[in-house]
């Protein structure tokens, strides 16, 4: 979801007469930054690849599940035959050690799960974080105390442990990606909620909120109409940092054996099994971690760009005395 949020202007749809004018300004500023454009393109390509996974594998003629025992050297731990992890015309990126499953197919299918899980969890994190943050900032002192302390503990609790406990409690036929989304979403919203709380406390003091109250808006209306739009910018930028960390988290959960279920591929799960292979079959490690790295990089760059584009201070960068000087301009 958030992926789309960030990329929405890129889809080029005509801005709605309302707030889109602001978004359009942001888009215009984004467009002038080559790094942002490249990052956006990379993410779009990834997303596209994930969505079109069946199509891509149809072209490559491989699926992510079929074993190819003949492609691996059973006597030597199951390492792929051939150079670079068994890269060949039929297996573009080589095969998985031990099973001989096609890596290209697994990577593109893995992108689906990983991006879905990361984005789904993000959505949940943002939802919970924003609600709790708002409630803490707008509720009475009691509510604030309680929610803030809970947030403290949430932020700092050993998340992996709770994740292990939770995943074992849930019935096993519960869909894994959904479970991962729920677990990651339900446990990792503390940062968002702190951010939202702080921002809301600032917003709450602004006169336009008072004006809205005077105009007869109830609390919910004030939140919806006056506060949420202003919270969007910091939350979006925060989300750009959260999303990649969700992918890494998926990897860590897989490493602890509570990731998506096999044979479904996911980047994190691939990474977690690949660790020991990095000397015997470097490609097997490099591919998922490279992809992960590119994704993280692209998200961070784009997030940075969005943040600066949303920052009015950056927008008016001509302001006197705010720049370091060169001898002559």
């Amino acid at each position, binding site marked *: 979801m958030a992926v789309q949020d960030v990329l929405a202007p890129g889809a080029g749809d005509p801005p709605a*007469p*309302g*707030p889109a*004018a*602001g978004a359009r300004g942001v888009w215009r500023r984004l467009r002038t930054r080559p790094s942002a454009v490249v990052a956006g393109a990379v993410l779009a390509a990834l997303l596209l690849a994930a969505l079109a996974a069946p199509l891509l594998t149809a072209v490559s003629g491989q699926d992510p599940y079929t074993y190819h025992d003949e492609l691996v050297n059973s006597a030597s731990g199951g390492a792929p035959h051939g150079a670079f992890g068994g890269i060949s015309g039929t297996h573009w990126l080589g095969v998985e050690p031990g099973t001989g499953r096609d890596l290209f197919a697994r990577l593109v299918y893995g992108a689906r799960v990983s991006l879905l899980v990361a984005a789904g969890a993000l959505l949940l994190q943002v939802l919970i974080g924003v609600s709790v943050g708002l409630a803490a900032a707008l509720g009475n002192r009691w509510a604030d105390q309680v929610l803030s302390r809970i947030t403290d503990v949430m932020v700092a609790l050993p998340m992996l442990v709770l994740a292990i406990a939770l995943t074992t409690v849930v019935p096993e036929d519960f869909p894994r990606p959904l479970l991962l989304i729920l677990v990651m979403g339900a446990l990792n919203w503390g940062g968002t909620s702190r951010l939202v709380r702080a921002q809301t406390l600032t917003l709450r003091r*602004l*006169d*336009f909120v*008072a*004006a*809205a*109250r*005077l*105009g*007869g*808006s*109830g609390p919910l*209306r004030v939140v919806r*109409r*006056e506060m949420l*739009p*202003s919270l*969007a910018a910091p939350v979006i930028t925060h989300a750009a940092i959260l999303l990649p960390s969700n992918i890494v988290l998926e990897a860590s959960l897989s490493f602890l054996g509570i990731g998506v279920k096999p044979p479904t591929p996911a980047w994190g799960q691939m990474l977690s099994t690949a660790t020991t292979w990095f000397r015997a079959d470097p490609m097997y490690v490099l591919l998922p971690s490279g992809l992960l790295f590119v994704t993280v990089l692209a998200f961070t760059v784009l997030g940075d760009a969005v943040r600066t584009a949303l920052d*009015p201070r950056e927008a008016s*960068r*001509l*302001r*006197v*005395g*705010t*720049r*370091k*000087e*060169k*001898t*002559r*301009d």
Partner: protein
Amino acid sequence: MTPHQPTDPAAGTAEPLVEVRGLTVDFPMGEETVRAVDDLSFRLTAGQALGIVGESGSGKSTVAAALLGLHRGTGAHLTGTVRVGGIDVATAPVRELRRLRGGIAAMVFQDPLSSLDPYLPIGDQIAEVHRIHTPQVSRRDARQRAITVLDRVGIPDAARRSRSRPHEFSGGMRQRALIAMALACAPRVLVADEPTTALDVTVQAQILDLLHDLRAETGMGLVLVSHDLGVVASSVEDMLVMRGGRAVERGPVGTVLKFPRQPYTRELLAAVPRVEARRAPMAAASALSSASTGDVLLEAAEVRREFGRRKDRTVAVDGVSLTVARGETLGIVGESGSGKTTLGRMLVRLLEPSGGSVRYRGHELTGVHSDLQMVFQDPVSSLNPRRGIGESVADPLRAAGNLTDMEITRRARELLERVGLDPRWYHRYPHEFSGGQRQRVGIARALAPGPKLIVCDEPVSALDVSTQAQVLSLLAELQRDLGLALVLIAHDLAVVRQASDRVAVMRQGTVVEEGPADTVYDAPDNPYTKALLAAVPVLDPAEAALRREARRNGGGLLRASAG
């Protein structure tokens, strides 16, 4: 326009301290460029004082910044020459430029809070700057120097206070600290960009007096930038009126103010509200008629408001009683922190009083009421930057929920038109408007629920004189047409006098004097009111000098209020 050289006796002989020739500053903004300063020339010799005035956006600050080469690296495009103390600001190497900044010309910025490092003790900040220009000085001596200059600008107990951080200082003290910072480097010219706009009249008077004394003492030059003609009148000899980046008129202060040659200067002068002038009879008559019927609309009885708990409790409003009649204007004046805003917010029930009651038409108020609206002080924070102005105005109508979408939009457009805005701007965003226009949007929004009373909290303090006049006349017009009652909160005494039937003077949470406007202004009863009135800058330089003298001799009360 023929550039008129200020007549200066020393002009022929000495090399000018500041020489600006044909300065043009362009700000490239995307496709277009904004010309902020257009072919401006002036010079300033040692010991001289020049005032630059003009409405908001006329390029005053841009000129001031150009004097210190502060546009470097920002992308602004400068042509012409600026020489300060013999250094060509445009071409000087960075090292030379650093010597110039502070060493030859020092700048005092407008906002005293944000202009100091919030994390460092004030003394350290001054010492740091001092050491840059006199590197041979030891740390300890630099600190000593900081204490000396702080003492010089009248910070009591300077040695101790030099260890305070900016937030522990009041606004006036911070401004003094900034001036002390400038003094520490012993510059030859001081560039002060609106050094008193954020301050109360009483504090403003002290700062201006301080500048005057320092000049007399050290003989440094002064470039004083301000939109307030009164400030300039009392502090400089020569002035330059700017408009749209160009110099429209220049000459000795007395001459320009008494005999303005340019229509623009005349307009500017006419817009300045005078504290000694009575209210325009037309407006007064219509309001008085209903006020005299004694039809009380809103009544505050012994309202109190405290903030914080236990140890850090402050009493913002301490037992204030007042009434507002239908259709009348009640002015509330007082210096910063006296509780005006708090009182105003309690009147519309945005704040709950900790004691006392507010009654509207005889009924106790328990929450916000659509009949009671407010216009806020700060046009920036009172409009949601992410919503179109039309939507902001339409919001109260939507919240009421008894009109169709079509009707709401139409009504909102009518309101925009009513306050003098183009209804086609409905979908525009606040940042696309000037301060005055934004204040109009605020008024339109306050009008939307069809109120009987509007509390205007400093509706014009952020605006320049000409815009101020427009907004005030708009309020008067609305009051006349709609029979509104107004509560006008302002720290500018002249503004209040111009627009109010009755005036209440607040100090430290209480009303010290209340009565018909003319009575309060012409025959003040309370010493505090008297002091306030004495501190108002006047447009006549000679009169200003007299008043300064009077303040110096008997200003005990003012000193007390500055601490």
